[in-house]
């Protein structure tokens, strides 16, 4: 019998936030992403350097140490194109530390859209372009091929699985959401409905969220979470089952949970504790799939994400501002791509990053849960206005520089 394994998968991402881009700059200044104010919360460089200091550098150092210390330790990472571009510009040492991790052969890179977009729901051709662009970037930077796919925000449905299957991926990631699983456990490999070869890995959200969301919450009855306690929980969860999929944002380590919460020490200690039992191991996402045959078929006709209590796309596409903004953006696709203007196409794609729509979310007005929705803007309405002006400016450039399209969209 094979060992019981944890599949640790971390998502690495930073968007290009839109600066305070006003009506008066529309059609005049085509820079949307570089905030001249070094102290602004929309200054991408400032934020990137801060998160690098708090999260990327210390966490990569910890991962390197764990890989060096424990031959059984493994991790999978998805790293977005917008993250890589910013790291290349401002913190090349962070890129290098990721390259060193991949060189160990025990760190797998997971495929996704280059721009962390929701293109799957708007344009299949644009979606595939971004998957290809990401594959190429990973090839160039790390010299590896990707074979397991995750969609932005883990937004998943049967159609996506069928696409990934026919595209040649051997695995795909999704949320292990109770209403879908019913009596079944997320701790098995499954086969998506209507597919031939692809396997589905489901996030164990209880154990994942213990770290990602609850770790530092002093109001939580289980606080403080110790390595002993967490080992107990993981061991109980995996009894007579093959694997535990721990999926979360990479920035959980050091940014969402700050160093002074003890998250780094906790994690290092837990890895050692887990591996001290010889029947335990870690899997990369590919190994988890290679080692385990699908235990059954899972169907998700409607889209499931890893966000909110609803696990749907409402945080991104729930209100009319979000729907309108993305509608205008994707309506430009053909005109923009025809120009072959790489700068214009790049700006259009950077505006596809899902974070922009998230900043326009008004759900927290009804939830009253302001802190659950981080945004660099003073309100979702400001985010919407700046974004709309940027879209208008794209139209202006099309019209002015390429003689295509009209200003009214």
């Amino acid at each position, binding site marked *: 019998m094979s060992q019981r394994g944890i599949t640790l998968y971390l998502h690495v991402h930073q968007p290009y936030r839109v600066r305070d881009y006003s*009506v008066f700059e*529309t059609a005049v200044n085509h820079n949307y992403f570089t905030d001249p104010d070094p102290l602004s919360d929309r200054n991408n460089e400032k934020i990137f350097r801060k998160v690098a200091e708090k999260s990327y550098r210390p966490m990569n150092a910890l991962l390197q140490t764990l890989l060096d210390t424990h031959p059984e330790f493994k991790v999978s990472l998805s790293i977005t194109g917008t993250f890589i571009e910013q790291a290349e510009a401002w913190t090349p040492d962070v890129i290098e530390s990721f390259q060193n991790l991949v060189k160990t052969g025990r760190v797998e890179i997971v495929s996704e859209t280059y721009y962390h977009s929701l293109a799957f729901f708007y344009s299949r051709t644009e979606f595939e372009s971004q998957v290809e662009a990401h594959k190429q970037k990973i090839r160039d930077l790390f010299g590896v091929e990707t074979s397991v796919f995750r969609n932005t925000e883990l937004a998943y449905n049967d159609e996506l699985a069928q696409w990934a299957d026919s595209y040649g991926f051997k695995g795909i990631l999704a949320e292990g959401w109770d209403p879908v699983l019913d009596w079944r456990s997320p701790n098995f490999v499954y086969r998506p409905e209507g597919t031939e070869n692809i396997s589905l890995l489901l996030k164990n959200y209880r154990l994942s969220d213990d770290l990602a969301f609850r770790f530092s919450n002093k109001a939580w009855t289980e606080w403080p979470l110790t390595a002993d306690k967490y080992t107990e929980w993981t061991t109980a969860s995996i009894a007579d089952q093959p694997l535990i999929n721990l999926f979360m944002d990479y920035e959980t380590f050091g940014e969402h949970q700050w160093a002074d919460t003890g998250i780094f020490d906790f994690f290092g200690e837990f890895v050692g504790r887990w591996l001290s039992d010889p029947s335990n191991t870690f899997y990369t996402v590919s190994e988890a799939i290679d080692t385990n045959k699908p235990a059954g078929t899972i169907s998700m006709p409607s889209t499931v994400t890893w966000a909110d209590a609803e696990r749907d796309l409402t945080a991104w596409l729930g209100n009319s*501002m979000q729907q309108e903004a993305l509608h205008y953006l994707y309506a430009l696709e053909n005109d923009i791509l025809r120009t072959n203007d790489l700068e214009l196409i790049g700006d259009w794609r950077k505006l596809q990053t899902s974070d922009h729509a998230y900043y326009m979310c008004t759900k927290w007005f009804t939830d009253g849960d302001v802190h659950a929705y981080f945004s660099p803007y003073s309100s979702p309405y400001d985010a919407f*206005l700046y974004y709309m002006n940027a879209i208008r400016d794209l139209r202006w450039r099309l019209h002015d520089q390429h003689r295509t399209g009209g*200003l009214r969209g």
Partner: protein
Amino acid sequence: MLGWELPPHNSGGLGVACYHLAKALSMKGTSIDFVVPYSAPHDAIDFMTVHSATKLSPLERYGLGAYDSSFLLEEKPGEVLGDLKDIRGVQRHYTRFVEQLISTKDIPFDAIHAHDWLTMEAGMRAKQLTDAPLIVHVHSTEFDRSGGGTGNPIAREIEYQGLIMADRIIAVSEVTKGIIISEYGIPADKIEVVYNAIDPSSFDDGYEYDRRTYKYLEGLKAEGHTIISAVTRMTIQKGLGNLITAVAKASEKYDRLALLLAGDGEQRNELIALASELGISDKIFFTGFVRGKQWRDAYSVSDIFVLSSVSEPFGLTALEAAHHDTALIVTRTSGVGEVLNSIFKYDFWDTDRLADQIVGIATSESLQKSLKQNVMHEYARLSWHDVAERCMNLYQTVRQGALV
């Protein structure tokens, strides 16, 4: 003269009207002591004496807002605001200052001219101390500011007392006169309607329209779009939700429309959400608060200016817009509509009518052109000298025939 703001430290039309009225009065030989509730230089004003009632900066006074009675100032470190933290505190200081001013003045005042509820208490006190006639000039009532509701009961009570105590009342329009009669129970013969005016020469400061300010809108115009605009505080009084709804309706009939909304206020987010629910965010341009060139260019870029107020005592912005060559559409409950003929009018709730008028102007070049040209002749007839003339007359005759 008791006022609350003067340019450039004004948040709206009240300051502009006071400035031009006082200037025209001084040219007719009136000597004016003008009291404002803040401290700031008024370098451009040499025709009267401006007194500062408190040490507050105009910015802190803006925080209080000419018309926001609910705002609270926060003390900054090292600063003691004392009872100046809210608008009532500022009003108390203002009244005390006026008492002092009267006691130190060598020549007695011939008349006290108080503008709006903000200064009415000081006006009543001054009348008590000097026995000079009190003229209360109503630019806006609490009824208007609350969008036709009850509003702040304290402001309303002060307005009521001020209107009762006044020897004469100046209303800036028949609309306002009607409200003073029906909402405050003041007899009609105590109220005189004196319309505001516009001083075209005040716009002659070498201004030239800059097409680059609203470059995208100019681009739309080049594609045949008609630009509609409103320059206003975004509050419920202004009826902007109806304007957005009407633009959505108009767009169904005629697509080449864009709406420029210049200004800011508590209703902004609601308006953004409404535009999006109607699916016309793409047609609407929110600029935020504008001043100077951006403010004047907002008029200049526009083809149609809409004054959509639920209740607007006068509506100086409409005259400013007309001066910058726009066709006007105003609500029937806006005072400015009483002095202009070459304009369209609608009931503030009638979005179908407004949509019709917008489409009509946008699709007929000759209609648009005649509206723009004809209204120019009409507003040019309105002169601050005439306003000052009527005020002088009022000062002199207010107590004639009165029994002691």
